[in-house]
Structures are given as structure tokens and as C-alpha cells.
């Protein structure tokens, strides 16, 4: 099975989620191969899980600070995606490649992030349901959906954290579930703190792709145009404030 690696890009929140969904649609139609992408957010964004209430987020603070607010199509919690502070990944493939066991597939995909951290000299472990921890503290979270026979998991790897900004954007009930105390990790995990974003990105590429046949290519034009359509839905208040 040949996988596709998309180029690293920084997009607005709605577009990032729309690209994931557009690729998933193309994979479902067998128009695109299984795909991995690493990306960032510009400007920063708060994403909330598809079952969450927007009460988890300080909506006014998002507007005031120019931070996008986007509801994901995956479950899980509210996350602040800092433009410089993390790398996000998505892995999108036919569901049959990952089997029926959801928890096992979280462990499998998170294993790629753990492999990447190992390449950077950092020991980490999978913490069910969907997290990776270093020294007992969360450094990576993820969320998975399976729709129409397509598997999609996206997740974050923290590089640094603007704690003040995060706590100004997430309300306490959400903040307590997010990445508290992570600054302690980032100062104690010297290798990650000193690694450049490019070095972390390269480690992630190796972690996700070393056991796979793959080739680098771009989004197809159909995927790009579909993503632009879907982004409008992700920007729509009816979707964002669904709950």
C-alpha cells in the first residue's frame, strides 16, 4: 500500500479541519491514497470536540485575541493550537487498515508519535484513551473518527505552551482536561525543548512513515476545491455553536 505525505502547511482552523475531511472523502471514493499530513495553525485556534459545549471556551476572548474557534468532527476535548507551540498530524486511510478495535488503533497511531519522541531521545508512553505522556504528564492528545469506511485520526505534539493564553481561552472545566502542568514537562524534557520544529517534524515523518511505502505529493485540485467548500461549513456559527 502506497501512502501519500502532504507538505507541511499552516492554515486557518476551519481550513485545517476541512482539508482533513476533504481528504477523507477522497479516500472513501478511492480517489486518493492513504494520507498523512503534518500541519500548523495560523492564526492560533481553539478546536472543540464534536460533542462539547462551546461553554468550554471563552468565545469573547477568542474574538478579542484573533484566535479561530472551530468545532471538530471528532470527539475529545477542547485544545488550544498555538501557531508556534505544536505540530498537528492527521492520518487518513481506509478503515480496514486499522481494524475494528478502536482502542488498539489509538495505541497503534500514538505509537508513531512515541517512536518520533524516541528518535529525539525522549521516553514516552501511551496513556489510554487517547494521550501520550512524558514523566506522567500529557504531551500529546488525539481524536479519531471512522465514517463511511474511512479512518481519520488527528492529534497534537506540543513543542511549547503559552499557558497564560491557553487559560485565557479555555474555561476552567476544559482547561483542567487539557495540558496543565505541561510547562514542567517542556522544561524537564531537554531534547524536545532544544529541538527545532524542523527536527521534530523530521522525527515525526520517520515515526509515521518508516514502516510504510510512501511518496510526497500535494493535495489534488478536487481535494483543494472541496476543502474550500467544507471550510465554509466549519466557519458557520450553526456548526460551531451546535451545542
Amino acid at each position, binding site marked *: 500500500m502506497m501512502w501519500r505525505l502532504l507538505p507541511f502547511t499552516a492554515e486557518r482552523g476551519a481550513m485545517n479541519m476541512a482539508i482533513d475531511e476533504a481528504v477523507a472523502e477522497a479516500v472513501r471514493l478511492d480517489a486518493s491514497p492513504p494520507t498523512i499530513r503534518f500541519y500548523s495553525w495560523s492564526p492560533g485556534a481553539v478546536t472543540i470536540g464534536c*460533542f462539547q459545549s462551546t461553554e468550554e471556551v471563552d468565545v469573547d476572548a477568542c474574538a478579542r485575541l484573533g484566535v479561530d474557534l472551530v468545532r471538530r468532527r471528532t*470527539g475529545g476535548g*477542547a485544545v488550544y493550537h498555538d501557531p508556534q507551540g505544536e505540530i498537528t498530524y492527521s492520518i487518513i486511510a481506509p478503515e480496514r487498515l486499522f481494524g475494528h478495535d478502536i482502542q488498539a488503533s489509538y495505541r497503534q497511531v500514538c505509537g508513531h508519535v512515541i517512536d518520533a519522541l524516541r528518535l529525539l531521545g525522549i521516553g514516552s508512553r501511551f496513556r489510554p484513551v487517547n494521550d501520550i505522556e512524558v514523566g506522567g504528564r500529557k504531551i500529546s492528545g488525539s481524536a479519531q473518527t*471512522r465514517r463511511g469506511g474511512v479512518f481519520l485520526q488527528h492529534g497534537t505534539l506540543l513543542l511549547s505552551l503559552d499557558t497564560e493564553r491557553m487559560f485565557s481561552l479555555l474555561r476552567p472545566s476544559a482547561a483542567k482536561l487539557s495540558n496543565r502542568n505541561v510547562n514542567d514537562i517542556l522544561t524537564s524534557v531537554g531534547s524536545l525543548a532544544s529541538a527545532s520544529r524542523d527536527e521534530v517534524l523530521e522525527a515525526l515523518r520517520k515515526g509515521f512513515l518508516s514502516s510504510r511505502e510512501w511518496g510526497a505529493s500535494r493535495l489534488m485540485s478536487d481535494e483543494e476545491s472541496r476543502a474550500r467548500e467544507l471550510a465554509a461549513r466549519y466557519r458557520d456559527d450553526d456548526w460551531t455553536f451546535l451545542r
Partner: protein
Amino acid sequence: MGPRVIRAERKVPGGKLVQMAAGSDGAIQLTGDFFLYPEDGLAGLEAFLSSLSDEEQDAAAGPIREYMERSGMRMLGLRPEDLADLLAEVRS
């Protein structure tokens, strides 16, 4: 003054936060950072929870589990027992 809504929430084993709201008409709404597959099944699950009688609520975990199996739904980070406990709380 709006319609009366009773809310309950709990952090379940594994760390997920689940919130349940019951409207004065008995309608149940679930929110939180749990995982439910397929995601589109949430509305059906809420309708099922709303439909449970007072007698069924006393031992709701079994019916909820049966509903999930019948509907081909799976939860991660959340158990039928958690929903049953929340249901008892918002309906008490």
C-alpha cells in the same frame, strides 16, 4: 425565566468529562469530551435516554448497553453505568 434544566456532570474513570442536561420536557442532552462511534448516533442515544421510564431509570445501565449493541454504537472513555448514574442524578 426560561424552562428549568437540571444538569449533572462527572469525570469518569479514564478522565473524560461527561455532562447531562434534562429539560423540563424530559429531553436529555449529552455534552463532553468523550468518544462515541459513530458520532451521528448521539441524537439517537439522547432520544433513547429521554424515553426511559422512571422504573427503567433505576437500572438503566442494562437497557443503555442493549441500545448501544442494537445500534452498533461504541463508546470510548464512557460506560453505560456512567450514563445511568447521570440519568438518575438529573431525574432525581
